[in-house]
């Protein structure tokens, strides 16, 4: 993998140059709020380079929360790919890139999902280095560094960026503006990158015992902690919506009036919702919130491992900042380990017997 150097002031002009003919998406602060979202923009100066995490992960570019799969008339059906455009997505932190690699295993391997695959092929992924806050768990989940899955990756060393070229498409982008880049790093550059890695590694304040979790999930499958968390869970589905690796969806058919085409709609779903495990005849395999939470955490902390090598949590911290009652990867992992946890669901369970 080639590594180049880009002067800080050349980043925005470079992004401008490569987004010619494609939609540029990047992290932008929501008006009057403290949150960031990936949105398309023509004003490159609005891109925020110091954000920690966006509210929704980048999965929304590849599987939108709600989209029309196809239109139906009495003559047959016509798939609708109109939302899939040439895009450049800038600002992906390592956890989010790992999240996309996770989704690739589900949507692009054994049973390719044509919407996902097309959207992926038409979107260039430009990674950006980051600095952890109190909720980042990616060091624990071993997703704080990324070595694949991007076209370009920018590491911010203040005066300049080190730019990793991760694909031939990424190489093509560099060739559009070769004058912006310097080949060959000197000793000092290498030294400052090593220092940066060391400082960043020490900046992580929040940790979980991730490697222990598959065992603990198995051993504590019947632990009362699940009933406690289930009793406080609002079953709102937010954890799944914000999780970069949650990928379940629901499909609805909408019939139209007056010979207009009908449509099939695909929407994000969550296994923490009551309807998720409901089948024909009215049987529900996971009627209790505790068993639904157990399923969710089995995916994040255990079961994905046997199939894909490791559990699916990428440590982005989104569930930590989102769940109103404090049920998240950190509080559940710590509880599984037997630690005393300060979270609403724990306080609630002490007051109310589930």
């Amino acid at each position, binding site marked *: 993998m080639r590594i180049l150097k880009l002067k800080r002031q050349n980043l925005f002009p470079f992004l401008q140059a490569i987004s010619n003919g494609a939609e540029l998406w990047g992290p932008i602060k929501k008006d009057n709020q403290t949150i960031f979202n990936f949105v398309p923009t023509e004003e490159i100066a609005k891109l925020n380079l110091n954000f920690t995490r966006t509210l929704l992960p980048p999965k929304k570019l590849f599987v939108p929360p709600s989209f029309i799969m196809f239109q139906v008339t009495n003559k047959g059906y016509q798939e609708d790919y109109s939302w899939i455009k040439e895009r450049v997505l800038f600002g992906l932190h390592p956890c989010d890139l790992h999240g996309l690699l996770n989704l690739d295993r589900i949507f692009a391997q054994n049973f390719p999902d044509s919407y996902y695959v097309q959207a992926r092929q038409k979107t260039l992924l430009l990674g950006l280095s980051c600095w952890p806050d109190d909720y980042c768990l990616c060091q624990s989940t071993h997703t704080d560094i990324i070595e694949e899955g991007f076209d370009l990756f920018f590491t911010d060393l203040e005066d300049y960026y080190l730019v990793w070229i991760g694909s031939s498409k990424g190489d093509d982008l560099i060739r559009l503006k070769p004058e912006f880049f310097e080949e060959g790093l000197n000793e000092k550059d290498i030294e400052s990158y090593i220092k940066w890695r060391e400082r960043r590694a020490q900046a992580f304040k929040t940790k979980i015992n991730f490697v222990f979790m598959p065992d603990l999930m198995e051993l504590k499958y019947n632990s009362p902690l699940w009933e406690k968390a289930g009793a406080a869970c609002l079953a709102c589905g937010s954890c799944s919506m914000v999780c970069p690796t949650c990928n379940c969806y629901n499909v609805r058919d909408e*019939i139209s009036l007056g010979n207009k085409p009908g449509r099939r709609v695909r929407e994000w779903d969550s296994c923490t*919702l009551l309807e998720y495990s409901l089948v024909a005849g009215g049987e529900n395999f996971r009627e209790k919130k505790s068993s639904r939470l157990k399923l969710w955490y089995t995916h994040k902390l255990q079961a994905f491992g046997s199939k894909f090598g490791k559990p699916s949590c990428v440590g982005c911290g989104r569930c930590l900042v*989102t769940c*109103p009652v404090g049920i998240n990867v950190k509080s559940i992992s710590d509880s599984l380990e037997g630690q005393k946890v300060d979270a*609403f669901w724990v306080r609630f369970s002490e007051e109310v017997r589930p």
Partner: protein
Amino acid sequence: MGKIKIGIYELTGCAGDALLILDCESQLLDIFQAADIEAFLMAKSDNSHGPVDVALVEGSVTTEEEKEELLAIRDRAEIVIAIGNCACEGGIQAALTASENWSKEFRQVYQDLKLTNVKPIPSQPIDAFIKVDYYLPGCPIGQEQFLTTFTRLLAGHPPELYRFPVCMECKWRENDCLLNKNLACLGPLTKGGCGAVCPSHNLPCIGCWGPAEEANRSAEFKLLLEKGFDLESIKRRMAIYAGTTIVDFFNQLKKEKS
């Protein structure tokens, strides 16, 4: 096969749901073309009392006369759909009426007024008296959910209704959680399908689509208490659109306290 026969009926409510149906302007011709509208007081004057395939009933039952009318509708309809918060939950007029204070409260409002044409009873959702096949929640109902339900029924399919709480669509719209910003948002307790309109404008949900299937009232109640809201204001907020169901919850709270 003849056209499907529809009746739209209004009991006690603001008629907002009937108005919303009438407000489907771009689809209205198609609706009237696809179905025979047998009864729709807001839209036409020659209303029949004959049999219908689908009866859409708005409003809650607040008089003996409405109860009789409702029973008659059930008798002549294949499918009965409750539309709007009043029909589904009993509406604002049902909040706390099951608290046994109804007669006292009634006198407080109407004093010794002699009622000549109706016999008032505590407001109840329509399923307190008849079997309801489907519920279209909302105050008022959502146009999109109404139309998708209507078209599925025309095609002979059962409607697919939203069963998730407001929070799902709220996240789709990339809103920061208002509960986490210490606002008394009832999103997690409330049926979704509204598109999370209010939270998307930074206004906490007041629950106008009625209680979600799995509303975890006690967790949200304790959460709001912990955030510093006072007990009475939380109770008031939770009671507005929860209809008759809230009374049980408040009784349960009382029991826990004692």
